[in-house]
């Protein structure tokens, strides 16, 4: 399979990338682990690929009580970043270490995956549960929106056509917090049939987000995952009918909660 003919430009700066995105049928190329497969299937047929792979948007940095996760940080780097070793933040590396396979994790990036917004991808649940903000840049300037306003539907986000996701900003949790990500994967594709991320604050407050079970990842209202999922609209297909998925989501949510609770006791 070979992608349809397409022009290619290597962006040397953020400004140059945003300029190139003025072309209506342009697509942003980061690690390419989501985009290349759809280009090869010719599901996507952009006129121009804007390769942002060389931009300085890589790495994990602690700044003003917040963690800045660069959009171009590959999964392998995120899985081993020393800044993420705290039990309070364990969900991030735990999730990153299980995405795809070694080769995909070497090239696939945090921002590329989030912007692609596959409804069965793992990391969206984690950024939702940790109360992260998405840092976006367009020719009009920079804006930040909560992760809960970013995912709008299958492969649909709040990014406008000439906007780039530059970083994910995670508030540093108070000592005594814990987080976890647990999923059950489709055995062939590796994508989540149901995935859940849980965050527990030092006061015992719970935040749970699920992925793979609806048209987009979402935060569960209230603190009882069973109740919240019973009221949610759940997606079903041949691999996992809706009622099975609903039950699976509750199981992974409870497991993630238990794990996060245990971690909260070790966090300081």
């Amino acid at each position, binding site marked *: 399979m070979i992608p349809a*003919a397409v022009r290619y430009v290597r962006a040397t700066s953020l400004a140059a990338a945003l300029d190139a995105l003025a072309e209506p049928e342009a697509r942003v190329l980061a690690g390419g682990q989501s985009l290349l497969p759809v280009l090869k299937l010719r599901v996507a047929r952009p006129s121009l690929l804007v390769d942002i792979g060389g931009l300085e948007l890589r790495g994990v940095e602690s700044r003003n009580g917040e963690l800045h996760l660069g959009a171009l940080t590959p999964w392998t780097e995120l899985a081993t970043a020393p800044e993420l070793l705290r039990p309070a933040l364990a969900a991030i590396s735990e999730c990153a270490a299980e995405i795809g*396979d070694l080769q995909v994790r070497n*090239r696939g990036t945090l921002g590329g995956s989030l912007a692609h917004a596959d409804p069965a991808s793992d990391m969206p649940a984690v950024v939702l549960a940790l109360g992260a903000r998405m840092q976006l840049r367009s020719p009009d300037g920079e804006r930040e929106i909560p992760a809960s306003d970013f995912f709008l539907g299958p492969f649909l986000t709040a990014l406008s056509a000439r906007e780039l996701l530059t970083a994910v900003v995670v508030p540093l949790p108070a000592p005594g917090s814990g987080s976890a990500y647990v999923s059950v994967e489709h055995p062939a594709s590796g994508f989540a049939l149901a995935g859940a991320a849980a965050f527990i604050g030092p006061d015992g407050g719970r935040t749970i987000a699920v992925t793979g079970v609806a048209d987009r990842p979402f935060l569960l209202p209230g603190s009882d995952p069973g109740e919240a999922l019973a009221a949610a609209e759940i997606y079903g297909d041949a691999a996992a009918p809706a009622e099975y998925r609903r039950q699976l989501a509750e199981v992974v949510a409870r497991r993630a909660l238990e794990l996060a609770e245990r971690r909260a006791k070790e966090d300081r």
Partner: protein
Amino acid sequence: MPDHLRFLVNGEARSLEVEGRTLLVHALRDGLGLTGTHVGCDTSQCGACTVLVGGRAVKSCTMLALQAEGAEVTTIEGLANGGELHPIQRAFVEHHGLQCGFCTPGMILTASDLLSRDPDPDDATIRRSLRGNYCRCTGYDAIVNSIRVAGATLRAETAA
């Protein structure tokens, strides 16, 4: 409209005219004649096309050739030192790590990435690292053994 690609392949500076859509695997196989890199599934699943880019295993069917501009690429042809097989290659030969051999270049280059990060991986770690490499001769046990042995050889060489 072809673009000009310049990169380092197996230690040698190479340049090539490629299209924007040209995949790295095709640049290597058709452009440079390095047919040791195999096309198996062509859908990012099987890992037969695995090469090292900057020392890290990647699927060359899921990367544009132009994304390798300026990069250091190692294919299976670049692993042996003249006539002398690389310790991972030798371990695969000596411990029956291959039957038909189609998946072998990818297996060996993935193993190379793994052992460069973790010189003494346990079997569970080796198996996890091979998740993106399929062997349809069902030879996984022998492949895991080969990588374990290669790790020991490489550790001994480093210590010596």
